[in-house]
């Protein structure tokens, strides 16, 4: 039975990827732009799922890692523009996010549950304060305009975002299904027992933070060079982090792929409901709450549940 389920999911996945690949021929640049953002958000959500779903760390601050990556890349580009290739800036952003991930991991090894959740929330608020206070460097509340973009062609941007999402999704998914993923899951559920079985819990958790930070930072940096600007409200604000968490839980925790589905769904729904104005967020939140209350395993859980029954 599990084989059947996984194979069905596999075929659905394959069909979706093919549709995504041929999409640029049929839809407008506007829709492509929307999907580009959705794909980057999907990477944010998948990275978060690795930390929460597997390592069991309640991280309220995914935007800390994203923001560090995005702003590092953006600031480097804004200050050394012609001399420094944007790919170097993006690499530096990902690296800075990894450093941020290690900093965030230190309290996680000491405190847990709500205490760690608050630490991550504080990290976001500190970063936000820093960006606003150091306005000369970061552009402050107005935002930072970067002189370079990856491409001005909507299709190129779309391909890059899609390829990036598929590659990072494959790596994160593979990691979660590997022995490392299992050990992470074990240490997330019972740290002491996992340690007693001889696994180095600290090392694995640190690795999870580093991987999650790497992909968050990379996605953040790429998105800066897609949008041509970095601002607190798109990369750092707590509200953005909340969206990512909701996306991951909505799609189905501990699945990695569910997080991507949730993110694309949230962004798509937000756009479809935009004519309703203020009501859009309200309706999306109600849908998310209903899913969480009645289908705790999210969208992916619904598909699987349907297959079982």
């Amino acid at each position: 039975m599990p084989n059947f389920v996984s194979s069905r999911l596999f075929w659905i996945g394959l069909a979706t990827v093919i549709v995504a690949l041929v999409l640029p021929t049929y839809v407008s640049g506007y829709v492509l732009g929307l999907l580009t953002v959705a794909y980057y958000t999907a990477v944010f959500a998948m990275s978060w799922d690795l930390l929460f779903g597997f390592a069991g760390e309640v991280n309220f601050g995914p935007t800390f890692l994203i923001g560090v990556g995005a702003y590092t890349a953006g600031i480097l580009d804004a200050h050394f523009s012609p001399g420094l290739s944007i790919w170097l800036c993006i690499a530096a952003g990902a690296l800075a996010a990894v450093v941020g991930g290690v900093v965030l991991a230190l309290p996680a090894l000491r405190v847990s549950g709500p205490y760690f959740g608050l630490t991550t929330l504080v990290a976001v608020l500190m970063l936000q304060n820093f960006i606003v206070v150091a306005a000369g460097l970061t552009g402050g509340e107005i935002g930072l305009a970067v002189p370079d973009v990856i491409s001005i062609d909507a299709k190129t941007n779309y391909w890059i975002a899609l390829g990036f999402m598929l590659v990072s999704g494959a790596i994160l998914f593979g990691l979660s299904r590997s022995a490392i993923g299992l050990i992470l899951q074990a240490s997330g559920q019972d740290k002491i027992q996992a340690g007693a079985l001889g696994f180095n819990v600290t090392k694995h958790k640190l690795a999870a933070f580093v991987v999650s930070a790497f992909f968050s930072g990379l996605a953040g940096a790429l998105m800066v060079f897609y949008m041509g600007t970095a601002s607190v409200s798109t990369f750092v604000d707590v509200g953005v982090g909340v969206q990512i968490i909701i996306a991951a839980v909505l799609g189905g925790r501990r699945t990695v792929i569910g997080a991507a589905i949730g993110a694309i769904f949230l962004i798509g729904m937000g756009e479809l409901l935009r004519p309703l104005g203020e009501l859009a967020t309200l309706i999306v939140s109600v849908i998310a709450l209903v899913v969480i209350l009645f289908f705790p395993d999210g969208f992916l859980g619904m598909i699987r549940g349907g297959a079982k029954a």
Partner: protein
Amino acid sequence: MLFWQILIDGFAISALYALGATGFTLIFGVSGVLNLSHGAIMVGAAVAAWAAASEFGVGPYTGALIGIIAGFILAFATYFIAVRPIQRSKVIAESEKEIFILTATLLWGIIIQEAIAYAFTNNAKTVLPIVEGVTTVLGVRTPRNEYFTAVICWVAIGLLWFLVNRTRRGKAVMAASMNPRGVTLLGIELSSIYLTVWAIYGLLAGVAGILLGMFLGVSSYSVGPLTASAFSIVVLGGLGSVSGSLIAAYVVGYLETGTAYLISPAYRTIPALLLLVVVMYLRPQGLFGRR
């Protein structure tokens, strides 16, 4: 002069923080729930009081009463919609209920926030104060409303103390926070204790929200920062410790007021955040945690 100004302003702000955080910590202490819709409930109560006065022209007292009722209704709605279904769910694993309640209350908070924004716009709203005018104490001209806020906050906190320590029902609540199983064995229904706690919480959050609306004004944008500040005060003082929260509220309140007056309003929240980080690293259970 500046010293007295900081002392008086800081006292009023801190009292408000203390009242807001007390309800939050009470819920956590008794039922282990971190209610992330806290800010939304406070703003909801304030907006109800504002709407009653400005749309239907009722007086400030009636307005405040309507606000308190709104706080009650929102608190119970939170419990019955976002908390209890998860606590009783058989599908969700016990170890995961915490994150589910966090996510559900967060979403519920957003729903309240957006409903307010839809019905009454995002504009800042100031609730008609019950006490008007200014008074000069120690050479500082302060709105009378500021003293009124501090007094009401402390009266409410005092009543809570009396309720928890001196009444039978309150003692049961206290006992439930220490040992839920023990209380059940004594024949007290745990679910009725939860209802009592959520009722007290609704009252506290409602009063705090209305006072905040009279003092500083609220808008649907204040929902997130309000939840975050209650959360940090409560963790700083030690989760579940009411006296810890009160002290932490004053530490945070004075740090913020002092920074705003002496350095710059732009840096207002930074020292408190730094303190929080230091405490999390050195003493994760908070200043007065029971752990």
